[in-house]
């Protein structure tokens, strides 16, 4: 599903974020991208969503080279990706239902289809009864659940989570990770984190990034700071 071929990324002021990245991620695979802060994890994820373009090399998602400058289907690409952010990116002036529905409205679904999909997603994250709540009425853990509901709603095949538990206490972290665990085998999941406990307990594929390079890629790996 995702293929990086000798990908390099340099920022305008000369600092190198990624060097010679070669990587393949299969459909429905569960992958952790780990490494210390500033290692290049977020840059790697942003290249998949085309928030950034590589300096050299190619990135193929779903059989299409998205690293070309003349690629004009970024909106279509992102409609296949569900994103979960460390800062949640939940809109405070919209209800839980509206926040999740936003991701579906983009795909021009009917209002009935949106209603059904939102309720399914909220049920999956355990927020079925809080659909008309505003974000200010929710806890941090619940906000992240809303973000996950938004990411998994509809037909998004790929879930990218950038430090999804970075702002959460240990108990909530495990609750959130359980939701990702439930999605295993149904969607491709890429989680960037530096939470060693989570990575080690899941025993999934681990890609370790340090100073912009992949230093280790193990199928059922663990991670040690």
């Amino acid at each position, binding site marked *: 599903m995702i293929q990086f071929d000798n990908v390099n990324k340099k920022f305008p002021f000369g600092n190198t974020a990624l060097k010679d990245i070669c990587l393949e991620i299969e459909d429905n695979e569960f992958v952790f991208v780990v490494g210390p802060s500033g290692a290049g994890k977020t840059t790697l994820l942003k290249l998949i*969503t085309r*928030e950034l373009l590589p300096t050299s090399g190619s990135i193929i998602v779903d059989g299409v080279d998205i690293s070309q400058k003349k690629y004009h289907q*970024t*909106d*279509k*690409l*992102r*409609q*296949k*990706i569900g*994103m979960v952010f460390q800062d949640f*990116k939940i*809109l405070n*002036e919209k209800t839980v239902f509206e926040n999740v529905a*936003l*991701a579906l409205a*983009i795909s021009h679904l009917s209002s009935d289809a949106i209603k059904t999909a939102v309720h399914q997603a909220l049920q999956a994250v355990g927020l079925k009864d809080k659909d008309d709540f505003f974000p200010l009425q929710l806890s941090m853990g619940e906000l992240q659940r809303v973000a996950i509901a*938004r990411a998994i709603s509809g037909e998004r095949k790929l879930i990218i989570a950038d430090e999804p538990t970075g702002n959460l206490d240990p108990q909530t972290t495990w609750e959130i990770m359980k939701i990702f665990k439930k999605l295993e085998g149904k969607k491709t999941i890429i989680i960037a984190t530096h939470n060693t406990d989570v990575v080690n307990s899941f025993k999934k594929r681990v890609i370790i990034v340090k100073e912009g390079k992949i230093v280790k890629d193990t199928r059922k790996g663990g991670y040690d700071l």
Partner: protein
Amino acid sequence: MNKLFKSIRRAPYQSFAAFLMLFMSLLMATALLFSIGSLYGLLGYVETRPQVTVYFQNTATESQIAKIKQELIDSGKALSVKYVTQTEAFETYKVLNKDNPLLLEMVTADILPASLEINAKKPVYLPQIAEFLQKKPGVNEVVFQKIIIDRLIQLTAIIRTISLTFFIFLTITTMIILFTITHFKVALKRDEIELLRLLGASNNFIRWPFFQESLVFAFFSATSAFLFFIGLIFYFSPFINGYLRGIDRLTINFDWTQITVWPLNLIWLATIYFGILLFGCFTYLTASFFATKKFIK
């Protein structure tokens, strides 16, 4: 629509400011359109009043005069051409001097010349018609009020320039203010726009709510401004009627059609309404387009 009303409810002051601004601009545009229309009608009316009068020598035959009259009609420059025979001229003379029997005794129909009274379609044609007539055989004298005509041409040009300048100024001012208001609204939604982009929304999807709001506001503002203006017109109608007494009809003439602007009629009112509706939609949509452009690169 629900989303739109929710958006208005959540930013009521900006929405009200946009509505008021558009309402004021469209009220001014309505007044401007109505005034320009009436003024053009009035100018058209006044422009056709001056005449060229050509007096013929007594030796000129009726067939010669009829031929000249036909040539004038065929030229497309004359609005009307009236042939005044010697007898008709004498009848007019008698009416004008009915209180002066001495003058009536001294003049007979043979002395007064036959003439053609010509109203031109545009005042610029008058000198051309006069020049044309002076070359014709049997013509004794051609009379037209050159100074009045020159001033009319000048006045028409000035009024056209002023109204066009004012209209451009109104359009630009409205657009800048609406751009600023919309820019505020878009800036308030910066996070939502950024999120929508990350979720895969197209530029049109992001812009659509702002465009939708522009269209709805333009509709309500145009309708309110139009109704308010119609109320004003009816309130002032006795004054307008008094001012235009004696004028049956004012029209604007285009090459392809003619619109009656006075007395008020459904076609002219519909033209004004759709004119300001289009103006409102165009200015607000353009302002929204540029206000959102910066945020959806």
